[in-house]
């Protein structure tokens, strides 16, 4: 069996369904792969580790990948895990903010990832506001508590499949403004990245084939797959994860290896316009179709 090491973007959660199910159902073994799954706490570190050759694959975010490539990290997207944005602008359902336009003069919390200002700027521009009209506060480790306790009026960077559910469970329902509906080009929230210089395309193809099979299994057997997932660790088996599982299902990429050149070109252009990157990279730099090689 070939060994392959995969760094998740964070602790195990339903977003990682295809990887966990593929492992539990033996789809990796079918591909003659032995997969080691590692969960870090700092989402910015897995891509660096892959770039440094410490792991074969990392789960990361498309927006960050664009920035990292410009900073010289030898990374490339090789597959997609979640094919839509999960990010949203979250407010209290009963709160004073009923439209992004109501944010004028209010506080918006964010967890520093590097591009929140650009995203929020675009959303505000869609509603005729600009960044100077609001106050941004980094609330790093506690997005929903900050919102629920009224310390901020909105947060950007919350995941629609989690924070929203979480607030419902806590009895303070929230409301999402979906970023792709507020002026941002759609993008892939979670992608697989590999080191473009050292990647073993064949192993990666086999890995992605296994996750593709797992995704199909999840879609076809949502209840059974949840039971498999929840059975892997007792701390995963709770009401929140169960509901999140259902909410995440439709967002898994059914074709993990599928390549949409336009998506990457549009987002690169968006970042360029926002002044976050100095030049435009060709899509072939950013992402590849491993099956084409």
């Amino acid at each position: 069996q070939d060994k392959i090491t995969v760094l998740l973007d964070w602790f195990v959660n339903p977003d990682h369904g295809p990887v966990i199910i593929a492992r539990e159902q033996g789809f990796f073994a079918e591909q003659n792969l032995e997969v080691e799954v590692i969960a870090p706490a700092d989402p910015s570190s897995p891509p660096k580790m892959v770039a440094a050759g410490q792991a074969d694959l990392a789960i990361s975010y498309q927006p960050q990948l664009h920035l990292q490539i410009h900073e010289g990290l030898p990374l490339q997207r090789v597959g997609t895990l979640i094919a839509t944005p999960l990010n949203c602008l979250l407010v209290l359902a009963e709160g004073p903010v009923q439209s992004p336009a109501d944010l004028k003069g209010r506080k918006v919390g964010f967890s520093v990832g590097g591009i929140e200002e650009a995203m929020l700027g675009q959303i505000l521009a869609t509603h005729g506001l600009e960044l100077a009209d609001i106050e941004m506060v980094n609330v790093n480790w506690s997005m929903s508590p900050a919102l629920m306790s009224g310390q901020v009026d909105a947060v950007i960077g919350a995941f629609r499949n989690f924070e929203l559910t979480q607030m419902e469970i806590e009895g303070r329902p929230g409301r999402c403004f979906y970023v792709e509906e507020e002026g941002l080009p759609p993008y892939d929230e979670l992608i697989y990245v590999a080191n473009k210089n050292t990647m073993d395309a064949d192993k990666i193809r086999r890995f992605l084939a296994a996750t593709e099979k797992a995704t199909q299994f999840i879609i076809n057997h949502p209840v059974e797959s949840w039971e498999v997932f929840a059975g892997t660790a007792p701390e995963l088996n709770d009401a929140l994860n169960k509901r999140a599982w259902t909410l995440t299902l439709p967002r898994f990429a059914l074709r993990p290896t599928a390549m949409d050149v336009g998506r990457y070109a549009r987002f690169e252009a968006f970042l360029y316009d926002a002044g976050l990157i100095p030049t435009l990279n060709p899509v072939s730099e950013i992402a590849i179709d491993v099956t084409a090689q």
Partner: protein
Amino acid sequence: MIRVRYALMVALFAPLLWQGVIWLTDVPAFILPSPWRVAQAAWINRALITQHSLVTATEVAAGLAVGAILGTVTAVLLALSARAHRMVMPLLVFTQSLPVFALAPILTLWFGYGLASKVVIAVLIIYFPVTSAFYDGLTRVPADILDMAKTMGATKFQTMRRIKIPHALPSLGTGLKLAAVYAPIGAVIGEWVGASQGLGYLMLLANGRAKTDLMFASLLALAIMTLVLHLAVGRASARLQRPEQP
């Protein structure tokens, strides 16, 4: 034993204080759950917490041992040469002032995601208080005793071994007690940097998924571990100093 009575009083007093804070400040439960809810969560998840506590305890024990030894040795070396101290101490302060999270990628690059990186982080955190406190003690031997040693033709090494080190044991005790409190934090930070087990992992997981009560139950386990460690190190270092110090 009196200690036990005090421990019981604290065990009773702390939750009351905690509940009092909740009543007074009206903190919502998703930020600070009541002691009762945390106790429930701790009981329900007892197997989980025990399992993760054992992992963290191992890391803490290893980190404390290695950090204490490294710190002690460094302090002795620095005390052997004032020049070494003036050159190395700034470097130590320098490295110490770097928040561990910033070094995390480097550490995981070198030490991987296993036990080693947690131990290294715990060591990094406790190394400095041990070195610093012990060094201070080593350099505070009264001058007339050093004069006597000089007249006797003492070697530098023997002066260190027979005079300075015994003299500085109480200061080492101060450093070790601080280390006992910081070692668990070090291990937990190490687990945040990358791990799939341990109390730190459990905490972040619980926090990220709004299980505030489970998070606080894990915190409780961590605090109890720290308390026991502090008490044990305090006793051990009191024994170390039994011969009355000047």
